């Protein structure tokens, strides 16, 4: 489902001494099947932006249009929008509450008013999608390990079968193996035809996974372009409290020393291959 955001501004607690402008005049659009990364310093408005995609915050002023439906319109059924756009919050394991994993994952589908049989099918499907074995589905979610809890929480959103999946820093606080596993899982979901929007603090992940990056700086869109182009602006990114991926740094240093490597290499394997190619002279 295509998403369009037009001139979106958001201010928290207006008219008080705690007034904070979190977003200012943000306009962007997301097409079906994209894998979009959202990066920006802490407090740049990333979480505020994605809360709008799910109608958790009313766009005011500005407009958010999800597959042709204006989210801010009065009387608009929000559950339809929430069915289309699945939102996985930061540390989603803190939202688990049911007695069993199965019941918790089924919470979303039940809220959609689906019959029990359908809920059961979706729960099983979502759990297998995130790689949680069937034996665990009768366990209490509070007994699982951190990484498992996180995957169960993500399954809770997947069970609603959203056409767009939005994830807020999905790998924060996981160990390296857990990170890789989860990122792989997100890639698989994307390959399955779901549009993915992912907030991340890792420039490396952003570069190698996303087809396009939206860079937020103090609530405004600083860049909205493919990774190769965004990371060409290294100095500006550093000024915004961000960085460039290690591979980009390496390529830049090598090119300063006389190499002629392309600037769209974001995996060490790719850089290695390019270096070998140049050294051996094809």
């Amino acid at each position, binding site marked *: 489902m295509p998403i369009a955001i037009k001139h979106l501004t958001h201010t*928290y*607690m207006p*008219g008080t*001494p705690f007034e904070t402008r979190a977003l200012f005049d943000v306009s962007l659009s997301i097409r079906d099947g994209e894998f979009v990364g959202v990066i920006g310093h802490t407090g740049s408005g990333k979480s505020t932006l994605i*809360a709008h995609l*799910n109608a*958790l915050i009313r766009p005011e002023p500005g407009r958010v249009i999800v597959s042709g439906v204006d989210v801010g319109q009065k009387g608009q059924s929000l*559950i339809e929008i*929430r*069915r289309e756009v*699945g*939102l996985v*919050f930061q540390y*989603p394991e*803190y*939202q*688990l*509450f049911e007695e069993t994993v199965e019941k918790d994952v089924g*919470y*979303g589908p039940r*809220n*959609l008013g689906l019959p029990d049989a359908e809920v059961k099918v979706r729960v099983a499907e979502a759990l297998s999608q995130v790689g949680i074995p069937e034996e665990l589905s009768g366990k209490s979610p*509070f007994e699982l390990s951190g990484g498992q809890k996180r995957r169960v929480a993500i399954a*809770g*959103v997947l069970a*609603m079968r959203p056409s767009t999946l939005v994830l807020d820093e999905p790998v924060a606080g996981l160990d390296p193996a857990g990170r890789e596993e989860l990122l792989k899982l997100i890639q698989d979901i994307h390959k399955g035809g779901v549009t993915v929007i992912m907030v991340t603090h890792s420039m490396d992940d952003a570069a190698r996974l996303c087809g396009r990056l939206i860079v937020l700086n103090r609530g405004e869109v600083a860049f909205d372009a493919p990774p190769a182009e965004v990371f060409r602006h290294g100095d500006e990114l550093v000024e915004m409290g961000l960085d460039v991926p290690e591979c980009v740094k390496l390529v830049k240093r090598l090119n300063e020393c006389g190499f002629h490597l392309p600037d769209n290499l974001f995996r060490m394997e790719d850089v290695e291959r390019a270096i070998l190619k140049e050294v051996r002279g094809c």
Partner: protein
Amino acid sequence: MLKNITIGQFFPGNSLIHRLDPRAKLMLTVALIVAVFLSQGFAGFALVLLFVAMAARMSRISLKFLVRGLKPILYIVIITFVLNLFFQSEGRVIFRWNFIAVTDGGLRRAAYMAVRLVLLVTSSQLLTLTTSAISLTDGLEALMRPLKKIKFPAHEIAMMMSIALRFIPTLMEEADKIMKAQMARGADFESGSLFKRAKAMVPLLVPLFVSAFRRADELAMAMEARCYHGGEGRTRMKQLRYGRRDLAAALAVALLIAAIATLNALGVF
């Protein structure tokens, strides 16, 4: 939703009023409340109002905040006014409809009670708006210290209060986050019967309790790691000290009370 609730409605600032010693501010607020009760008529109220307005101006609190603080007691004020209006029957009748009669004495009494209520709330708001929760509990602890002689757990109560106050915003933020997360999963907290709505709170309350206990555990650990062992022999980084401004404020309040007493003695209402 939750974001509109403010508890411990501190309005940060650096004015003279903000910098008063919290103990002095607590005691002076009590004195100000005494002044309100002492006033027997509108002349006294006018003095108190003038005093509060000047103090509010000095503390640079916008009038909007003081007025907003009155909202929760609006109905109480209206009920007080109406009850007094109809159930006082001294004086000349100025309005009559069936068995309901309004007398000028009743009107006066009703206005008196309503204004008194508003002044009481506004005066105490002056305290809560200009004093952070932390210094408020510091002040309370210091004032309660003499009660330790009769085994009153002054330090523990102050510590519990400051921890509670410190964590209210955190828990509210957390509740807001969990609420949003469940809404993203199609939860509906706002419609349906009372029973349905109560049931809809479960997905909010369970995670909130879990996280409150986790936080309590972490906090206990962090406090022990920093050698907390109760109030015995504990010193403070910020010592409370009365200054000249506290004396000045006390004199101002004393003057106000004296003026009201004089008005009473002269019979000016």
